[in-house]
């Protein structure tokens, strides 16, 4: 046993560890550091900007701003006090986004499976590029397409769903008006988020260890049973992460939803009915003619949306990262 008490009384002073970087290295370091910090600073500034502008609103309405359903800019001349609440819009954002995710997820996962395991060799590349390209189309185009091309069909589908599944509360309608419903907005959103979910899913599917795939085939698995027992368990958390990413994108979508959704300041869970909400679209709608208090209210709505999407994105990152670490 070494004598532990034999440590010298005075420890030597720690030496400073330095290197002198070359000039070129310094320059490069400066550039990338600046780049990295610009992103952080911009993000921080946006948060600060929104927070300061919306401070008054939160002080006035407190939590009621998030939970209230009414949006009335008021009329001080006639003694009507303003009341601002984005609860219905927040609910609407969630409803529309989940409708979008509901349609996008199976299609995207199916596309990714097809591209990875079924598509003939010559088709993979062009099809992958095409799907990725879908993400590059400006969202206003999706909105116009949704309004002019998709909506007439979607109304027909909505009527069918309503006719046969109308006994289920979500598919019933208080009035037979099917235009610009959360259902239609969700469909448009689903098309918009398919590329991102497909890309993430394709990425995890391509990481499935070959030896596991071969093990399944060597046991007499069909392609589908192999996918069920090997690929999907391995890719599940990656798919979940991709879905969250798509959800984040859907929640922040503005213009496309603005064109195909009828904004209505009451919570509506009848997805086929022509009334819905979307925080982002609401901001655009009100922005032009907003008074000073209402403008602050819009800033506050923006802040809430900003926080919600940040949280969703953070969660999706967390899931995707854990998926790639455990490698299951």
């Amino acid at each position: 046993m070494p004598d532990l008490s034999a440590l010298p009384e005075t420890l030597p002073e720690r030496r400073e560890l330095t290197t002198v970087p070359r000039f070129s290295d310094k320059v490069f370091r400066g550039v990338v550091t600046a780049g990295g910090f610009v992103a952080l600073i911009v993000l921080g500034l946006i948060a600060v900007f929104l927070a300061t502008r919306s401070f008054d609103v939160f002080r006035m309405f407190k939590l009621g701003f998030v939970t209230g359903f009414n949006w009335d800019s008021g009329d001080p001349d006639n003694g009507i006090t303003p009341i601002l609440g984005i609860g219905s819009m927040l609910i609407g954002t969630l409803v529309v986004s989940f409708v979008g995710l509901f349609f996008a997820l199976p299609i995207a996962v199916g596309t990714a499976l097809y591209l990875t395991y079924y598509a003939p060799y010559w088709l993979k590349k062009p099809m992958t590029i095409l799907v990725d390209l879908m993400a590059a189309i400006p969202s206003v185009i999706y909105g116009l397409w949704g309004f002019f091309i998709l909506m007439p069909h979607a109304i027909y589908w909505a009527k069918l769903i309503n006719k046969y599944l109308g006994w289920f509360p979500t598919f019933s309608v208080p009035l037979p008006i099917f235009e610009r419903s959360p259902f239609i907005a969700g469909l448009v959103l689903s098309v918009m988020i398919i590329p991102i979910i497909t890309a993430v899913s394709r990425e995890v599917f391509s990481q499935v260890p070959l030896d596991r795939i071969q093990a399944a085939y060597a046991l007499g698995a069909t392609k589908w049973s192999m996918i069920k027992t090997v690929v999907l368990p391995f890719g599940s958390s990656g798919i979940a992460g991709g879905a969250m990413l798509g959800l984040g994108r859907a929640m922040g979508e503005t213009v496309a939803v603005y064109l195909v959704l009828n904004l209505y300041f009451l919570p509506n869970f009848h997805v086929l009915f022509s009334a819905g909400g979307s925080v982002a679209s609401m901001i655009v709608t009100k922005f032009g003619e907003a008074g000073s208090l209402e403008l602050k209210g819009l800033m506050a709505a923006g802040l809430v949306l900003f926080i919600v999407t940040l949280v969703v994105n953070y969660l999706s990152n967390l899931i995707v990262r854990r998926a790639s670490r455990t490698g299951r």
Partner: protein
Amino acid sequence: MDILKLKGSGQAQTTSEDKVAKPEISSLASVAADRSESKGDFVPRRPGAGLEAKGVHAWFGKHHVLANVSLNFPSGTVTALIGPSGCGKSTFLRTLNRMHEFIPGAGMAGEVLLDGTDIYKSGTDVTKIRLKVGMVFQKPNPFPSMTIGENVLSGIKLAQLKVSNKDDLLEECLQRAGLWNEVKDRLSAHGGSLSGGQQQRLCIARALAVKPEVLLMDEPCSALDPGSTLRIEETIRQLTESVIVVIVTHNMQQAARVSDFTGFFLSDGGPGQLVEVASTKEIFSRPKDERTEAYVTGRFG
């Protein structure tokens, strides 16, 4: 059967018998001799049954990697495939259960007869072939998301087979793979929690659960320690009761210990070919081809 003991007596025999020029080959030969003595003169239990390759060629794209291999695997036997790296042993093995065709551009010619029927005949259900001709890979590859028990029964699920008593099947397969005593108390632990050797025996149990007629093993022990290797060799010997085993190995000792027949593959830059096939004893004592002799004595390869 205790392989360790067999091996010991084999070496004793060597020293008493011949102390001539080639000590290495003679020791292997006596190991092999011991094996076939224990087996007696080989008589196939079911005449006509078994696996037979007839004039098999294989390509990867334009690359011709295997030429004209004909080999017979009668039921109740273990056949070892040996040869230098890259001579097409794995490729040949994978043509026997149609795993070869997973590689894009892969091609083959010739016939592989399972119980007299060509497995490449058009209209064949490939998944049924792979049920009858199972495979154990070089690297143990249990499904990590499944428990030990689920791993063993995974083939049942994958091929959508019906089994009356899963627990019995589970125990039977683990017994035959020589793993039962080690895992019987933790069947619900994850497959990845086993040691490498145990994982490989788990993979053998998994392959046995679908009741294959043939088991193909591609260097099943190359990632394992000597102890696990011996356990698996023991397992292989016991399997011959009911399955045909074809094993690729780089370990001459292993080929000598475990197989009844040995085939030697070689490629001289062109496609790999089967140089010689004979009883394991012959290959290791008096091979007909001098290249075989050079290889098994370790003079090249």
